[in-house]
């Protein structure tokens, strides 16, 4: 039997514009705009303006002081020919693939532990969150101290259990894993988010699952994960964007010596934003750096869209029809 459905008439663009404009007849609308005006001003001047400027500059050979010429798509063609762009992109994607799941799994694990603690919960929440407040530059310096191969605290700890630790700071194969471990200490913000999500899972769902004989793993897989999937998805997107833009800690740890323009770790920590920064502020190839910035923007946008499309299969929002 064919189902009969009635659909509401879809408003055309003109109707929507008229509807939006009609709002300005109300005094409250003006007040609302007055309140958000400072933010709008800041956004236009400090975000949208520079974005438009960099889009224009990406088609020039702007280098701050020399005469600027239009170069058409030459900067974008140079990106294609520049082997370091591919190297930086490969490093960035590899680092992202290593960090994002590690952060999410560890955060969820810690949040699950915290969810079971009643009395000292707030103290532990504070302890886990404290590293988030640490300046990223300090994290970079701490990395050098903790992860010194042979003599750092990490390798000394490994030596106690009979493991000869790697050279985290100099061996190109271990630099990225070392950075992942180092940055994992600031998982606190995600722990807090996951904890809130875990506490919002209705208890009766667990009770029903238990009555049906579901094991702890099944309860986690079929109740917890779907119910907290919007939060997981949110952090997945945010972490991915953060990783694709990683800069401060790596720059502090490996590019701190102003006399060493190329850094001290070779190509192993040449991430996309580091390369972009070098082109812009070490070599002053502002036009090329702008093109690199837009390439990175495009990649982040693409990755995010792909994530959103795939999320439809995995993310469950309460109240929505599946």
């Amino acid at each position: 039997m064919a189902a009969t459905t009635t659909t509401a008439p879809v408003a055309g663009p003109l109707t929507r514009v008229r509807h939006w404009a009609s709002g300005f007849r109300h005094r409250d609308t003006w007040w609302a705009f007055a309140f958000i005006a400072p933010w709008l001003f800041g956004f236009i001047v400090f975000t949208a303006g520079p974005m438009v400027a960099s889009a224009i500059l990406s088609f020039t050979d702007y280098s701050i002081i020399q005469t600027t010429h239009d170069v058409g798509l030459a900067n974008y063609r140079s990106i294609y020919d520049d082997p370091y762009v591919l190297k930086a992109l490969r490093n960035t994607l590899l680092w992202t693939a290593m960090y994002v799941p590690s952060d999410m799994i560890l955060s969820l694990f810690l949040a699950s532990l915290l969810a079971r603690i009643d009395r000292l919960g707030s103290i532990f929440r504070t302890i886990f969150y404290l590293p988030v407040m640490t300046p990223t530059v300090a994290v970079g310096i701490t990395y050098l101290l903790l992860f010194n191969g042979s003599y750092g605290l990490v390798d000394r700890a490994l030596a106690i259990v009979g493991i000869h630790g790697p050279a985290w700071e100099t061996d190109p194969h271990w630099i990225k894993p070392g950075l992942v471990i180092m940055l994992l200490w600031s998982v606190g913000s995600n722990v807090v988010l996951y904890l809130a999500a875990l506490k919002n899972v209705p208890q009766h769902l667990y009770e029903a699952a238990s009555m049906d004989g579901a094991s702890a793993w099944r309860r986690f897989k079929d109740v917890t994960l779907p119910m907290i999937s919007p939060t997981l998805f949110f952090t997945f997107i945010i972490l991915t964007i953060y990783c694709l833009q990683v800069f401060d800690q790596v720059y502090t740890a490996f590019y701190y010596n102003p006399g060493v323009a190329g850094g001290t770790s070779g190509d192993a920590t040449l991430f996309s934003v580091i390369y972009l920064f070098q082109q812009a502020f070490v070599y002053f190839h502002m036009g090329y750096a702008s093109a690199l910035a837009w390439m990175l923007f495009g990649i982040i946008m693409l990755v995010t869209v792909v994530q959103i499309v795939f999320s439809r299969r995995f993310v469950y929002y309460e109240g929505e029809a599946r």
Partner: protein
Amino acid sequence: MSGRWKRVGVALALLGLLVAVVTTAASARPLSKGSSKATTLNIMGFGTNGDDVAQSRFALAKAAIAPDDVSAPNGGFNDQAFLAAVASGSPPDLVYMDRAKVGTYAADGALQPLTSCISSQHINLKQYRPAALSQVTYKGKVYGIPEFFDVRTIIADYSVMQSSGVTLKQMNTAHPSTLLAAAKKMYQHNGSQVTRIGFDPKLPEFFPLWAKVYGVDILSADGLHPHLNDPRAIKALTFAYSLIKAQGGYNAFLTFRNTWDFFGSDNQVAKDQVGAWPMEDWYVNVLAGSSPQVHTLLIPMRTLTGKPINYTSGSAWAIPKGSKNFKDACTWARTMTAVSTWVAAAQNRIALRKKSGGVFTGLRTANIDADRAIFKLQPKINSWFDQNVKTLAGVMPYSFSIPASPASAEFQTAWMNAVTRVLQGQQTPKQALDQAQTEAVKAIKAASK
């Protein structure tokens, strides 16, 4: 009660405002009244918080431009701030920067040639060391007045040499195999960990010095033609890397080096953690302060033919394009680098060291005449220390530098990354330097357009 506090608050605010207005007016008065023609020289990269040598020269230069005033905010030269200032049409009148950057900024048109400054102030260019002058000369024009002059020699820990049975004759870069044997003798380890580096070639930073040992300049005198994959440069890197390979390999070697207390009293020399390594002369000053009792020897680096060499770098004064106070800027640069100024600064330091019981380790400048005069003032300390000061002075005439280039930062990145790739075992010296040569040629070509 609250009304009373409100009145007190308002009264205090008004009083504060009054004080601010009066103070501002008072401080503005001399400018508007007494010296209507007096101007201010704006300097970038050289503040007033330097050491005694900087401060005594600052005072003399300030007197030289009087009644004009000087504004010199603390903090080193900042490329981004400088370029932004030039681009916005309000550059500083004078900048103090690394000589290695002068060529790039000259090629970009951010600096102006000092031809008229040199002639109007009767600055004798012959008094400056050629290696320093070549760093500030671009396409035949001088863009900077050279100031300090780094000297790089081998610093050897005498007690390590003695205990390892290494003689001074063996610490000679003219004989690589002998040096390698000496390095192995001084090197110590406890299984997987390095506990003492015998000889640290100081890679990647000192690669230009090793290339020169093997007889090649990595950049042509005009700064336009890199010689990074010259067979001699490849041999130099191969040898310098072999020193590291023979002493635990790069990872163990570098991780140990990173643990050194470089500026403290437990430094690597005081703790016998290193036998010898090439280093800038400023570190002699550090050692004199942190561990004066440690017996060190300074040994010149030599080419394979036995000629002493010094890889130098240093600072310079330059005048940006659009400087609004060219005359004062020029006077300042001349005064800061004049023989009499250097001598006065040296005398002041000698007096200060005498007062505090410290050691005067000399000043090494880009001005040959100043160095001669300062050397005469050098007090005798002890036989080995006096010999070290003589060694530094003796090696200065054999100096070379990386010439001014329109793409100095890109050039440096190319060879530094190449050496790092070799150290990390990713490429052979030939592969790495071939790649660096291609990158450097491309960067210089692009910057020369």
